[in-house]
């Protein structure tokens, strides 16, 4: 199979086998639009479910207990409020602190009673209070400011690096696409959003742009001389670039997803609710979508934007017109056919040689 894969990669590189990714962009746009729409619906209903780190909640402190078994506290709380996953901490060696999402007053009293009974202490030794969010509004506000500044910086840097703002815009569109779908899937699964989830989303933010930059770098390389030749259109050259990086994209996403998948598996099926599960789900979905978008969304969007440029539009028109003429004319012109068969195609990656320095020159024998 590896043999087949290498051959396949080789065919993609030479262009013997080519997937018309850019040409069928309407299909990818439709798929992406549907995914985004479904995610948007999921984000509205049921919506993301913020954990106690964001909303605050109820806190119970059981003091002077003999038995510091944390599992007992979790089970006791879950008897009263099923579906709750309380955070249990030992405080000062003889107290237990149990934090849950905000409970109704009746539930709070019931949990208080149940905890007192479970740990064999009088009810007066179980105190309750309301705790505020540890991930407060100030953290969120600063994080959003940070992200906006980051996006601004990245747009500027990409515009300078690629000498074209359209690539930056396409990368940003792909990024929002990835984030919305990742958040939508998370909302659909219904797990609590914890700080670990947010860290996962932030990683996706970086990964999505990173992956897009790698693909765009190949597109830039292939299309640099588009206007200096009249054989291929911009879209065709960009399509070849995507095909040539396909093997890289697949290898990278497999290598990146394997550890994440194993964390997700262990987190979800062995450990249950917790940091690992939350971060791994966000990463798994985000990386998968990020790879999809850098191949099927970013480059087609970029081509769509570029084709609005007068120079590119004119060039595309010329190339297609010339090609049409040849198609009709070639049948009765055998010489042209012969020449076509012998022509060496180069869709961008062949570069003229350069001077190799004096050391490369032949030396006189002495």
């Amino acid at each position: 199979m590896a043999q087949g894969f290498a051959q396949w990669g080789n065919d993609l590189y030479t262009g013997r086998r080519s997937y018309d990714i850019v040409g069928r962009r309407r299909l990818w746009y439709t798929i992406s639009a549907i995914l985004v729409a479904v995610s948007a619906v999921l984000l509205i209903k049921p919506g993301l479910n913020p954990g106690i780190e964001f909303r605050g909640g109820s806190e119970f402190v059981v003091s002077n207990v003999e038995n510091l078994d944390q599992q007992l506290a979790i089970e006791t709380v879950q008897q009263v409020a099923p579906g709750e996953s309380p955070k249990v901490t030992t405080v000062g060696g003889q107290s237990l602190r149990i934090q849950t999402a905000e409970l109704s007053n009746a539930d709070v009293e019931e949990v208080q009673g149940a905890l007192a009974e479970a740990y064999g202490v009088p009810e007066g030794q179980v105190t309750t209070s309301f705790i505020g969010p540890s991930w407060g509004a100030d953290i969120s506000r600063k994080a959003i400011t940070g992200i906006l500044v980051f996006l601004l910086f990245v747009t500027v840097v990409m515009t300078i690096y690629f000498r074209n703002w359209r690539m930056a815009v396409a990368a940003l569109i792909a990024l929002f696409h990835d984030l919305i779908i990742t958040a939508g899937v998370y909302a659909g699964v219904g797990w609590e959003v914890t700080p670990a989830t947010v860290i996962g989303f932030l990683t996706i933010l970086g990964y999505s742009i990173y992956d897009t930059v790698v693909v765009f770098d190949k597109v830039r390389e292939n299309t640099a001389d588009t206007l200096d030749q009249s054989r291929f259109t911009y879209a065709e050259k960009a399509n070849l670039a995507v095909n040539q990086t396909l093997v890289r994209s697949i290898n990278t996403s497999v290598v990146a997803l394997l550890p994440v998948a194993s964390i997700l598996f262990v987190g979800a099926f062995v450990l249950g609710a917790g940091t690992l599960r939350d971060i791994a789900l966000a990463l798994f979905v985000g990386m998968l979508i990020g790879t999809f978008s850098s191949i099927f969304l970013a480059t087609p969007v970029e081509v769509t934007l570029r084709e609005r440029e007068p120079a590119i539009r004119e060039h595309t028109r010329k190339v297609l017109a010339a090609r049409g003429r040849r198609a009709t004319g070639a049948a009765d012109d055998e010489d042209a056919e012969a020449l076509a068969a012998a022509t060496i195609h180069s869709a961008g990656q062949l570069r003229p040689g350069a001077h190799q320095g004096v050391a490369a020159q032949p030396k006189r024998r002495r």
Partner: protein
Amino acid sequence: MAPPTRRHRPVRTLLWLGLLIVAIFGTIFAGTKTSDATWTPNLALDLEGGTQIILKPVSEDPGAITDETISQAIEVIRQRVDSSGVAEAEITSQGRNIVVALPGTPSEETLDLVRTSAQMEFRPVLAVGAPTPTTADDAAAPEPTPSASAEAQATDGEEAAADEGAAEAAATPTPTPSASTPASDTPSKAAPDNPSDVAYYVTPAVQERFDALDCTDPANLTGGAPGAPDVAYVTCDPDGTSKFILGPVEIPGKNIDSASSGLRTTSTGATTGEWVVNLEFNSQGTTQFTEVTTRLQGLSSPQNQFAVVLDGLVISWPSLSPGTIISDGKAEISGGFTRESAATLANQLNFGSLPLSFTVQSEEQISATLGSEQLQKGLIAGLIGLILVVIYSLFQYRALGLLTVASLIVAAVLTYGVITLLSWTQGYRLSLPGVAGLIVAIGITADSFIVYFERIRDELREGRTLQAAVERGWERARRTILASDAVNLIAALVLYALTVGGVRGFAFTLGLTTIIDVIVVFLFTHPMMTLIARTRFFGDGHPLSGLDPRRLGVDTARYAGRGRVVTPTTSGKAAKKDGDRVPVGVGTGGGATTSSGPTIAERRAAARAAAGDAATAPPGATEPTPDAAAQDEPRTGRTEGSEH
């Protein structure tokens, strides 16, 4: 192929990497011998537990304790904790209390950062006395030995009188004598001449409180809420060596622009061994400070002294010798600081004071919220993932996969060393999201190698020898790797600079792994690749090397210079195996039948052959491909030369 133009010294590069690793671990080793460094990174609150401090707000005015001031206080505390390193603290409100959970066993300085409100203000000294309670007779005996003097970056009285008016207005207090006080607190005058006006501010009631104050009693040395800003204030210094009557607040702490700590430097630039806190006022503070120093330097002792009050205690009371006017808005506070206490105070001043004063209600050890099970299972999961990555890369890249594995091991060693080093020097602590982030970084690090290897394969497909392909592929892969890592680095820097709490910790980890990725690719993967390209196993493209040109489709004739065309011996076999596959030139858009060989001679030969074929076969019979893309491919009559 042309030999590489520049001389590369891969072994030397590898030695640099070895030196770097030795330096990191050597520093840690030295740290364990001389300081409190350990061989394992410190763990964060969720994995190790820590100390929980419950702060209860105290204020004379119960109305001051609102949700808003509590959340302001939380914000300031969080900034202070963040400034002391990258340990992630958890700060929540609990009713009207603030609960701060710090990882591990925090040092006294870190606890001070959280506990003290750091309300700093500047008041003129009206009277200084011995710390014990005094009778009315020997009251206000001036004690003319301030422990510190203003190291004035003092300038001559060059300050403009133009600002004087505004400053006067800002500094002039509005007297609010409270008539309700039983002891006569009524000033003898209607209005003070200036804030140093002893006759106005030192009322009999103030004098009575001053006389009664016992600064040898530790209860009076804890500080707390500062007094009302516009009346006289009686207090001690933190060591209990003197007591003071102070005038109204002349410069509030909010006019401090920035603060830093350092060793005192004399005017000649030499450093004395004394730790000081350097302040810089904002424009309003500068004007006020100029105005105050102008007035005080003309007064006699003790009124020429200037008290720096921190949380209600006088930490420094420098005297201004005549002629000392400070107009550049810079002040230096020396009050018997150590390195740590000076840094703590500078941190506190930088992020502003808390809007409330707090007392510590309880301070207790708390256990980890996640426990060792999560970390252990997480690491096992990471290990399984890593093994899968190794299997996959060996499968994909054969022997070259071993280079991926070796590079990942180098990256892991570097990461472990740097994290351990930083947890000693910067207080970095590894949380479970951090561990997950490091596992994810495997993917991003491995991507650099994949980009590099794929570029080398691309160059091989173009018919280069391995050594040339490595050089050429590296040049192009380097660009891509740097561009994409730059994006991650920007994300890390921006988020680290602008955010707090968990996001900041994430940014730190991201930046760290990105830099290590670049180091590993530049100092390990590339030099190693250059070295192994020289071996026969890789250089001749052994089928197991992952760089076998035949597997990469280079099975056509290749022009080798001087009129020779190299035809690989296996090409016949390959062609047979591939059945009816027709060789295609590299980089064709698809479809057209060509042979690759960029020489004029070959092209002419091909053209002759094609012309011969065309005469016998119907046109298009050699068209090999049914691909959709091929249908509309060009069959161009142009020659290569006209293309560029």
